[in-house]
């Protein structure tokens, strides 16, 4: 009589049995490291966001491709009509369109926060003995890195298209720096929105209806002096217009210190108000 031996095909992914002895040793160490500092925990969350970019590279693609598209579209499509030539218009447009596309991508932060909060993982974070704002700050730190990347890509594309900054390297770096500070501060609006809305779709539609008027009612595409008199003071004083004036001045080499200061004040205000609301909403969840 022959014995047929059937080898069961074992799944390579199938987990091995739990090792009780090993587990017991790990439990028994009783190690209790001191809770991490606010900075360390925020950095750990930033690292998490960077890992997400690594695992889901499509999202970085979005954030880099959109700005280039905006730059090409507005320069070559509208440049002729608005400024009578694409070369001059690019010189005017680049700082503004950089502000617009990067400020617009800050919306994604609210969506990520909302997706997180609706999943079990945020329960885990909320039972950890860490600084309460760490997850949000972590997000924003990683996002600032993405905005810097988007800024570099746009600036590079602009150079290829013929843009020449009069303000030199220092002016450009300071200008981008100002933009990043504003984006970091402005994003607290989205973290708050992400926490208080039901779904990521709601976050998206609310953000859109804030961002479109805010960015178009500005000096990004056209000089406000071409607008009706009653509209000019409104447009000139939105935080976005102030930011654009600041960045444009730094890029162009004739610094408008008033706009830079106003932008920094707006930034501090956004952090104070929406940072507070974010943390309060987070604690109440």
């Amino acid at each position, binding site marked *: 009589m022959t014995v047929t031996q059937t080898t069961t095909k074992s799944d390579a992914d199938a*987990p091995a049995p*739990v090792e009780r002895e090993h587990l017991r040793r790990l439990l028994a160490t*009783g*190690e209790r490291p001191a809770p991490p500092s606010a900075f360390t925990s925020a950095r750990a969350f930033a690292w998490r966001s960077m890992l997400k970019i690594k695992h889901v590279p499509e999202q970085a693609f979005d954030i880099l491709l959109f700005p280039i598209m905006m730059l090409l579209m507005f320069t070559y499509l509208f440049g002729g009509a608005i400024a009578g030539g694409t070369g001059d218009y690019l010189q005017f447009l680049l700082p503004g369109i950089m502000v617009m596309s990067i400020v617009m991508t800050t919306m994604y932060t609210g969506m990520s926060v909302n997706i997180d909060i609706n999943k*079990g993982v945020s329960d885990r974070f909320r039972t*950890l003995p860490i600084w309460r704002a760490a997850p949000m700050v972590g997000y924003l730190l990683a996002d600032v890195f993405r905005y810097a990347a988007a800024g570099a890509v746009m600036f590079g594309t602009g150079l290829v298209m013929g843009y020449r900054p009069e303000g030199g390297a220092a002016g450009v770096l300071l200008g981008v720096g100002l933009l990043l500070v504003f984006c970091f501060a402005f994003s607290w609006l989205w973290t708050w929105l992400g926490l208080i809305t039901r779904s990521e779709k709601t976050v998206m539609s609310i953000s859109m209806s804030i961002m479109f008027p805010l960015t178009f009612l500005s000096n990004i595409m056209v000089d406000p002096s071409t607008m009706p008199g009653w509209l000019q003071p409104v447009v000139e004083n939105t935080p976005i217009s102030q930011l654009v004036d600041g960045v444009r001045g730094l890029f162009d080499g004739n610094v408008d210190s008033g706009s830079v200061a106003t932008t920094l004040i707006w930034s501090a205000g956004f952090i104070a108000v929406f940072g507070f609301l974010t943390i309060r909403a987070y604690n109440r969840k």
Partner: protein
Amino acid sequence: MSQRELAIRAEGLVKHFKDVKAVDGVDLEVPAGTVYGVLGPNGAGKTTTVRMLATLLRPDAGSATVFGRDLVGDAASVRSQVSLTGQYASLDEDLTGFENLVLLSRLYGYAKPASRDRAGDLLEAFGLSNAGGKQVKAYSGGMRRRLDIAASIIVTPKLLFLDEPTTGLDPRSRNQVWDVVRTIVGEGTTVLLTTQYLEEADQLASRIAVIDTGRVIAEGTPGQLKSSVGAGSIRVRLHHADQRDHARQVLVEALAGEVALDDDPVALTARLAPGQDTAVQGSHALGELARAGVLVDDFSLGQPSLDEVFLALTGRVDA
């Protein structure tokens, strides 16, 4: 009775969502160093209770202490003692298992190299070394649950909440989780476990609270609970349908209890006497059947189900 240290003392916890009273006055006393089972059907308020005790939800009324620390007033210090494994895996699905554990180790305060060591060790102990480099979204339910528990013991908690840890798992994964729970409690951690299965509470818990519509409706050791509900039953399938009446008589005499004829023409079910050993009664019944010449094809010996516990405690059958 000597005063044992309490891991949890909750009095009159209440949580309403809009018009729904999710938790409507829950009292609990959980002795330290034990597994405490919270048993109830879906929607009974188990998860809401656990979320309040883990500082994730603020109670609308009532108070609770965890190892003597006030749940609301001293939430930060409660957080440093507890860990939660939620009903839905509390992990980042986009990250790998290893990355999840490293991230959480960092957040518990381990330095970078130490957190990598801890993550590697935990993966190994939980039999997940091979899957450590894969994104969690590719994990099976059993693997997720293990990783989730591993994440909960990065720093050995004094109190671990496990919210329905085996719901939806196959029997093998379930047994592994049970093993893990026993090991964890063996090392001195108090475990509060919610479950829909009486069997699970019976296997693991030294005390059980039965919860329904936001209230504790019974509390005690598994033995007390079961005897309050009534005994289990033995179900027998016969070889010959025409022996059923005879078998019924034999069982009535052997067990002195109620015997019901099933819809299946060869099967019948006899209720066991409460307060006596199930196994002894079952064996006795089978022996008597054999002696009477009744041929048995198949039999099963059952403890009261959660349905029966509920029927007995609430008079409802919708558990």
